[in-house]
């Protein structure tokens, strides 16, 4: 459900129209000026790098606010982060780094459990493994790149997620885009949620299977699409599909919404299709013991055929994993190109994940894992409810650590981002084409490393900047007498 004030929709469309018109005008004059200046002789006969207008958006819209994106950082992405200052002499076309840094409150990193900075249990183990195994295995998994750390990690991940076996890869994006073509090919059907991540879209396109889309988080529409596709069969021959896979995500990173997993699994079981759950943002961050969206929504992991996740978000490392039955994992080990040809995960990164999972499970001998999980839930609910009380339009379900604040107008994106940076709060703003054109947003990621004072400072700054930028689209709730109702966490 997309809900926006009508006047804002009109002004946003008008602003984009104006930006587009000015961009086209500047392109027109650039073409005239370049036609007068004769082209250099060396490039005669070469094809142009960009076909038609496909770089228009980058040149005329993205480059104008380039300083809001790709900000270099100079420290670990903890609750507070050092952002490198940059300046530009030609109106943001090129940016130059200075050697100054500003310490800012970090509301943009996926540091859900606070493992991104040095941790008292993980870091000594990581340094030991760095000394013992060095920083790279210098080999692919299938040749000489499987250390005992890798096998230990795979067993641990399988146990943590609740599946019989698991396999890990060096990069999270590649996990999706290299696995999906191996699981399904021509003659198969992939039905994916309309707001799935680019890695899934890439994997689906590379597989050669037919791809259909169902309305975001809408199990009844999924059922309609399934019934239509199963009845029609493959295009032109109308033979039955060889395989049908439904791909959904646990938490959608641009909306902060949880997937309606029980209903979707029920629909998939009814029509006997396979399910693929991408838990990149939910593993380790939601659920009573951090086991992800299956635990939170009460779904048996045995009902989901393939569970995918990444180690980048909650575990403070890099890489991705797939957890499934032993037969599937064995099959993947001898077909997946990311296992056969890509370098294996770096051993210190593997050790970081092993230590982080041990902390979450409480196997390191303390209850820091349970504390972190409770803290992130508390932090997310507090921050979200405060923002909503101030009148911001915040998306996402409660308990989800990702909260997008809607901006809508294109001019508010750099305004919000730059003003927050000036007040020492680092936020991430997202615009077209990662989100639909009208729905630009600032995405806040809460971490267990944020203390209550940090959150209150963040709220003050965001409230002030929100007033300046005019993004409090909903009516402000009047302050009522707060009888502190502590929600009993089931």
């Amino acid at each position, binding site marked *: 459900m997309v809900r*926006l*004030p009508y006047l804002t*929709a009109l002004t946003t469309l008008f602003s*984009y129209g104006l930006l587009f018109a000015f961009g086209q005008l500047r392109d027109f004059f650039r073409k005239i000026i370049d036609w007068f200046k004769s082209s250099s002789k060396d490039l005669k006969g070469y094809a142009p790098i960009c076909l038609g*207008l496909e770089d*228009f958006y980058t040149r005329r819209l993205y480059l104008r606010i380039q300083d809001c994106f790709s900000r270099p950082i100079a420290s670990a992405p903890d609750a507070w982060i050092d952002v490198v200052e940059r300046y530009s002499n030609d109106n943001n076309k090129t940016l130059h780094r200075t050697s100054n840094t500003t310490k800012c409150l970090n509301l943009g990193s996926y540091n859900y459990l606070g493992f991104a900075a040095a941790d008292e249990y993980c870091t000594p183990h990581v340094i030991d493994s760095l000394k013992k195994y060095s920083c790279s295995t210098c080999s692919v998994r299938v040749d000489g790149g499987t250390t005992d750390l890798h096998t230990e990690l795979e067993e641990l991940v399988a146990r943590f997620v609740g599946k019989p076996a698991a396999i890990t890869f060096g990069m999270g994006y590649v996990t999706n885009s290299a696995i999906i073509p191996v699981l399904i090919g021509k003659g198969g059907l992939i039905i994916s949620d309309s707001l799935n991540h680019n890695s899934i879209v890439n994997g689906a396109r590379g597989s050669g299977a037919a791809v259909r*889309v169902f309305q975001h988080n809408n199990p009844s529409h999924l059922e309609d699409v399934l019934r239509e596709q199963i009845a029609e069969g493959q295009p032109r021959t109308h033979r039955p599909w060889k395989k049908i896979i439904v791909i959904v995500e646990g938490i959608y990173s641009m909306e902060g919404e949880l997937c309606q997993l029980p209903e979707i699994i029920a629909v998939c079981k009814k029509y006997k299709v396979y399910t693929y759950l991408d838990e990149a943002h939910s593993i380790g961050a939601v659920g009573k013991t951090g086991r992800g969206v299956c635990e939170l929504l009460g779904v048996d992991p045995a009902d989901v055929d393939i569970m995918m996740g990444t180690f980048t978000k909650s575990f403070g490392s890099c890489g991705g994993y797939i957890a499934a039955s032993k037969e599937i994992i064995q099959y993947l080990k001898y077909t997946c190109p990311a296992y056969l040809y890509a370098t294996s995960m770096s051993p210190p990164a593997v050790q970081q994940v092993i230590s982080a999972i041990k902390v979450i499970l409480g196997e390191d001998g303390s209850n820091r894992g349970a504390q972190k999980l409770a803290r992130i839930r508390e932090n997310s609910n507090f921050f979200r409810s405060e923002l909503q009380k101030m009148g911001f339009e915040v998306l996402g379900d409660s308990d989800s650590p990702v909260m997008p604040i809607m901006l809508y107008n294109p001019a508010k994106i750099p305004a919000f981002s730059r003003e927050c940076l000036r007040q020492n709060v680092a936020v991430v703003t997202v615009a077209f084409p990662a989100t639909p054109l009208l729905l630009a947003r600032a995405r806040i990621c809460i971490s267990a490393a944020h203390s209550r004072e940090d959150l209150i400072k963040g709220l003050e700054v965001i409230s002030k900047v929100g007033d300046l930028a005019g993004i409090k689209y909903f009516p402000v709730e009047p302050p009522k007498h707060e009888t502190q109702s502590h929600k009993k966490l089931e």
Partner: protein
Amino acid sequence: MAKLYAQTAPPMDMNKNTEWFLYPGVWTIYVLILLLSWLLVLSVFGCTPGMAWTLVNLFHFAVTYYFFHWKKGTPFAEDQGIYNNLTWWEQMENGKQLTRNRKFLTVVPVVLYLIASHTTDYQHPMLFLNTIAVAILEVAKFPNMHKVRIFGING
């Protein structure tokens, strides 16, 4: 005044170039931009209202013909060029013809033509130019012209 909110289900168009047209408020802003540009032309050139409507009609013809029916592809590279042979009109709503949005966009040039020719009292040079503008635009929007390239122009 209480704030008016518009609420829709998110449109399912995968093509980010045309998806924005399915959101609420597009028709309103389109008409409002035309009205605003008429006022702008009147204040800048100080001509008769009929001449202003003719100018708006011709300018609207030039802009919409160029961007809807001439330029092909999308202004960003993320879709890997799968729409590189289709104009914006052909990409709209995945090529489905005679939808509500297409009908709206077909009616607007006709209404503009009627207003322009009425306010100029059907006098000669303006009537001729207005008629050519509306004829070309309407022919380009016929469902039978989907993916048709006359004489291979713009192929």
